[in-house]
């Protein structure tokens, strides 16, 4: 429809009012000065550069771990005794600690130091580092990582991400790192104070495609120079080590960037949910990274790197969706309306049974993709289908869970509104994690 006189008048008025507001607040913000604005008002250089990463005991070749055991040629949904034991301790931690602190983590936009300390007692980081490098891992099991992610997110998704981000960096270095990279960085994860580390893949743009990052890495002699902006980076402000996805002349790659590098700055970027993960934006303004810090030792598979992150998000979504289902069942049985529990009505009961059906549908696709990844089979199709299903169904479970609680569900009195916000991250987030 063409603009008429009234339309032009309203538009002009809008301009006037808008500029007045901007001037009063002093935050005039246009496309030209956006970087100036960001750097002045909120971005800060990363100060956590105290840690020196040094390659003290050079390795001859990278330490790679095998998948656990030999796989029998039988369809089998059972988990191992070891996985069952790990799950039990993780589930207890998620129930007793993460769930209790869910609301606080959301409000404070971060995970409590004490919680991280308690989480470290689970030994997740240590079990991500090979024995030969001082860790405790004799095998590498994405399936176990998937189950751990699911169980942590059953407690709280935001805190789960904060706990898993450093573990994910260790997983990635174990799976892909060169001898130099493992000797310099991975060994640190086996120490008493493993580095705060995180993975930066997503970028602040609609329809972001992780296979085509706008962030660039240009080769300059024995360095790469990184330029671009990353978003939804867990632990962005605290991290001492980053894995950053960037486009090179020969396709997308991942670069190990130390906190404190010149040109690296970070800003808080609070979002709708998963706030306890401390997500932020990362700006790389000509950050120089040694060529040796390009992740990989000849066997690097960028797509698999991205997909193992995507599948971690699927696992988190499953855990939070399970929390939602477990919460609405007793609620629907206890809440009465018209003289009987609301669960006695098909309109409510069928919402809940559908949540259960779709939750298991999500689980089957995610499990299948991760099992294939663990067995070294191609899994890009399976990861793609899992993400496609999970992002829709998890959000469906999120919105229907709030619906069951009605007005109650919309308030902070109940955790379901937070889970609703957390679950929207599914389908948006890339990177951050690595099974």
């Amino acid at each position, binding site marked *: 429809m063409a603009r008429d006189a009234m339309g032009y008048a309203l538009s002009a008025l809008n301009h006037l009012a808008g500029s007045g507001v901007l001037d009063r607040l002093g935050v005039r913000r246009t496309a030209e000065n956006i970087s100036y604005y960001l750097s002045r008002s909120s971005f800060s250089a990363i100060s956590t550069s105290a840690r020196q990463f040094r390659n003290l005991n050079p390795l001859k070749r990278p330490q790679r771990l095998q998948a656990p055991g030999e796989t029998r040629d039988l369809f089998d949904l059972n988990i191992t005794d070891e996985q069952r034991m790990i799950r039990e301790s993780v589930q207890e931690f998620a129930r007793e600690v993460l769930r209790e602190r869910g609301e606080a983590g959301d409000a404070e936009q971060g995970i409590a130091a004490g919680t991280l300390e308690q989480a470290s007692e689970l030994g997740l980081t240590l079990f991500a580092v090979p024995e030969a490098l001082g860790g405790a891992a004799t095998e590498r099991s994405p399936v176990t990582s998937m189950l751990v992610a699911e169980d942590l997110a059953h407690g709280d998704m935001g805190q789960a991400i904060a706990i898993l981000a450093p573990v994910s960096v260790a997983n990635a270095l174990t799976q892909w790192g060169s001898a130099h990279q493992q000797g310099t960085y991975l060994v640190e994860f086996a120490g008493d104070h493993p580095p705060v580390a995180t993975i930066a893949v997503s970028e602040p743009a609609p329809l972001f495609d992780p296979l085509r990052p706008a962030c660039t890495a240009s080769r300059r002699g024995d360095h790469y120079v990184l330029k671009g902006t990353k978003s939804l980076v867990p632990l962005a402000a605290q991290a001492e080590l980053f894995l950053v996805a960037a486009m090179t002349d020969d396709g997308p790659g991942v670069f190990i960037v130390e906190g404190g590098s010149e040109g690296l700055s970070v800003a808080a970027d609070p979002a709708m949910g998963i706030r306890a993960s401390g997500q932020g934006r990362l700006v790389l303004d000509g950050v120089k990274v040694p060529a040796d810090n390009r992740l990989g030792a000849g066997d690097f598979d960028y797509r698999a790197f991205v997909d193992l992150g995507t599948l971690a998000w699927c696992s988190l979504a499953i855990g939070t969706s399970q929390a939602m289902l477990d919460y609405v*069942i007793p609620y629907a049985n206890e809440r009465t309306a018209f003289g009987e529990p609301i669960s006695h009505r098909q309109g409510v*009961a069928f919402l809940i049974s559908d949540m259960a059906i779709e939750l298991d549908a999500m689980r089957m696709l995610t*499990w299948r993709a991760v099992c294939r990844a663990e067995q070294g089979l191609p899994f890009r199709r399976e990861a793609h289908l899992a993400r496609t299903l999970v992002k829709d169904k998890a959000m469906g479970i999120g919105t229907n869970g709030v619906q069951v609680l009605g007005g109650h569900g919309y308030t902070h009195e109940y955790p379901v509104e937070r889970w609703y916000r957390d679950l929207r991250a599914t389908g948006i987030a890339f990177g951050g994690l690595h099974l």
Partner: protein
Amino acid sequence: MNLEIPKKFRSLVNNAHQVAAGTFRPISRYYDRHEHERPRELDMLASILDGFNEGDPSNSAGAATTGANGEAGAEGVRNGSNMGVCLGAMELCYGDVALMLSLPRQGLGNAAISAVATDEQKQRFDGKWAAMAITEPGCGSDSGAIRTTARREGDEYVLNGEKIYVTAGERADCVVVWATLDPSMGKAAIKSFVVEWGTPGMELARLEKKLGIRASDTAAIHFQDCRVPAENLLGSPEIDTSKGFAGAMQTFDNTRPLVAAMAVGCGRAALERLKELLADHVNLDYDQPVDNGSAVEAEIYRMEAEWESAYWLTVRAAWMADNHQPNSVQASMCKAKAGRVGNWITLRCAELAGTLGYSEEELLEKWARDSKILDIFEGTQQIQNLIIARRLLGLSSSELR
């Protein structure tokens, strides 16, 4: 944990696929147009399938072998006949659902016999094609409301009542009939009886004309003072109110994954054909995030993801049956999911193919009609939801009605 289909099922899947592509597809349209005409091509095929079953029961594709179990692998995990039957049904229904339902000696009645019959009964009914008769004019999903009666007289039961929607009811050798020993005793009094065609008092009332699965006969059968030997009662003749309906219903734990498998097979047929028709219009490389491609690419990815989840939910339920794990909820889940997904995919594929999809030139419109029954029989999606919801919420059938 391992979510791959073991190699030992490869020949079964391949054989079933050959039947689907080589035997079913070429005659699919003909028998859709000639409703009630018996597909003679299937008689010889059934003999071949019998050969498969006898040679390797745990790896055979017939409904008659649900309930049996394959050899246990290390640590006692089984991938047995329930899984095999589901995988076979997926392939056969990739060919044609109605023709699969018309395969002699592979009826749902055979599954019931296999699930609850004594060894003596299994031997006596061996080689017989058995249909299943549950529904009545006054009771559909509400099996507890069955009004057909079975009155004990000496060594016989006397059956009176009317059964409808009996799949393969006319063509089968016998019918497994659900009837009540005492209408005042509720569900616990409902028993199933094998009634052979030719028994006096058993009469074919009519054959239905249907929306789809037209190659499969759907019979209405009338029973008037029909005398059945007492030893044709399946399971216990006692009315055990503590067990309630459980005995009769346990058949469903094996047959619901089978019907889910049919929906999975039918859905795959439509999705594959649509991909062929759209080959020049889409680029399906699983590279771009689903929302970054064209609308039709996104829709195909969504259909494939939904389809794949229905597939694995079905395999899970069958795996649990093979391993003697209680699977009522999971059987209902896969039935509900596969039923609705199969129907949605076939209808959507017909739509996306335009007039080609709607025309009888393609089979897409037929699959879109066939798939609807798979969301209805063996328990509608709504009945599956009731079963799942009652179990999750811990509610009785009087609380959640």
